[in-house]
């Protein structure tokens, strides 16, 4: 008596060791019983399905997707974490010196990550990481509001809180961004999504306005030059002044994100994917993606450099 390939016990007596389990995928050409069949490509469904599988951890079952989302989402808290010691000790020096750099740059990073989710979903055909878009958006809003609050209280511009927030061109643009991000933060939950219905998406397209305003904010903040002072972002220790200029970092990142949002480009990508030539898509967008990564790593480097200074309460002057 042994197990048949289907796992049933039979009366025959072949060797039990040659047991072969049923294959992982359903047999070719056979539809699932319920009649529903995912239309995704094989690669997508494979990884998405892999992410849907749960595993045992401490007596409970956890989905792999949940672990991956936590691991990918946790770094978004880092900018706030960097400012925590200064907040606990009420260190006004750290706040006035580096809160703009730490929280402002953190908000910029979170915005780019939030905007990156859709193009990556289009390129890879996977959807398991889409929930990160909301998380990065929320963290972007928190960093931006924290930046504005701290700047309004501790900055050295003339005037009161509103003088500091709206007294100059670049601060006004930043203030407008924060004002726009507040409704997005308040409606970034399933309840508001239900209440607003189809208008929710329309409202949340304000993120593109914020994206555009960020360009104006950075341009007005540092100009287009590379020098130190009001016309640049400081010394470039590695001899690469262009990518230490925040506006150019922004441009490098935005070019990729913007290109992949253009309808003809999206149509072209979808057509190539349907033809099964996804490699062509990747080859074509590789230079833009490399530029994005290049700019992003410079921003990330700045965030880590300034953030560690803030965390140790020895803020950097760069």
């Amino acid at each position, binding site marked *: *008596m*042994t*197990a048949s390939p289907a*796992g049933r*016990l039979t009366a025959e007596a072949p060797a*039990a*060791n040659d*047991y072969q*389990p049923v294959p*992982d995928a*359903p047999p070719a050409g056979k539809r699932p019983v*319920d009649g*529903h069949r*995912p239309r995704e490509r094989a690669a997508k*469904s494979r990884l*998405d*399905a892999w992410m*849907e*599988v749960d595993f045992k951890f401490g007596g409970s079952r956890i989905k792999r997707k949940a672990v991956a989302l936590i691991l990918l989402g946790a770094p978004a808290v880092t900018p706030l974490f960097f400012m925590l010691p200064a907040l606990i000790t009420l260190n006004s*020096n750290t706040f006035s*010196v580096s809160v703009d*750099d730490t929280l402002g740059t953190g908000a910029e990073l979170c915005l780019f990550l939030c905007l990156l989710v859709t193009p990556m979903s289009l390129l890879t055909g996977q959807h398991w990481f889409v929930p990160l878009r909301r998380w990065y958006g929320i963290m972007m809003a928190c960093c931006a509001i924290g930046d504005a609050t701290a700047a309004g209280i501790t*900055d*050295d*511009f*003339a*005037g009161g809180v*509103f*003088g500091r927030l*709206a*007294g*100059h*061109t*670049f601060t*006004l643009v930043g*203030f*407008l961004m924060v*004002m*726009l991000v507040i*409704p997005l933060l308040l*409606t970034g939950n399933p309840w508001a999504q*239900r*209440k*607003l*219905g*189809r*208008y929710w998406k329309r*409202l949340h397209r*304000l993120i593109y306005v914020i994206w555009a305003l960020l360009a104006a904010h950075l341009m007005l903040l540092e100009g287009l030059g590379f020098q130190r*002072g*009001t016309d640049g972002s*400081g*010394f470039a220790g*590695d001899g690469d002044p262009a990518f230490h200029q925040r506006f150019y970092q922004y441009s490098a990142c935005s070019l990729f994100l913007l290109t992949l949002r253009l309808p003809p480009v999206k149509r072209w990508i979808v057509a190539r994917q349907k033809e099964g030539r996804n490699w062509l898509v990747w080859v074509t967008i590789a230079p833009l993606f490399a530029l994005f990564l290049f700019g992003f790593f410079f921003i990330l480097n700045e965030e880590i450099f300034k953030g560690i*200074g803030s965390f140790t309460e*020895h*803020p*950097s*002057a*760069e």
Partner: protein
Amino acid sequence: MLLAGRSATRPSTLAPQERDDADWVARRMVLDAGAQAARLRRQASVRAASICDAAEREAEIVWRQTSVQAAAIREASEREAARLRATVMKLSAGPGELGGVVAPVARNVAGSAPPAAKPAVRLVTRPARRPQGAPRQLVAARVAAAATAALLFFALTAATTEVALHGFAFFVFRSAGTGETPSTGLQENQGPGQPDAPRPTVAAHNR
């Protein structure tokens, strides 16, 4: 047979002349039967273990396939629900009696209410009515838009006040260094060719 084979291969220590033949054969049979039973028990336990392993593997696979199928079904039903909701909303926005008839259904669907317990026939027989006021979603959207506009207006008012107080030139220009990070921390000027670049040590020079 096995018994015969065994007895043929193993030299017997008992002399058949000294023992009763029947007794000797019976003892040998009991011994061989015991050995055979032990062997069968071992084989059965090995087979049982392999069947258990196989069943566990199979259960894992079935679990995985079921979760995949469930996800697909959930996704398909969500898509279907969204499509139905869109259709009903479109119908409710339509002109004439049809719009009035479908409007209550549309309100239910838009509010993500559970499907109406009463059949649709009942709704058709109800007198056609125009929906009272704007749909709830539109009201919520108007509130959100008004709040956003108020926030923007607040920011622009603050800026206008600042311009009125300090003048346009102050708003546009700032003196060098204003708003810049004050230089109280480390300075990154230790790169090659920069003022604080590390100099070669004497020991390194003499080496």
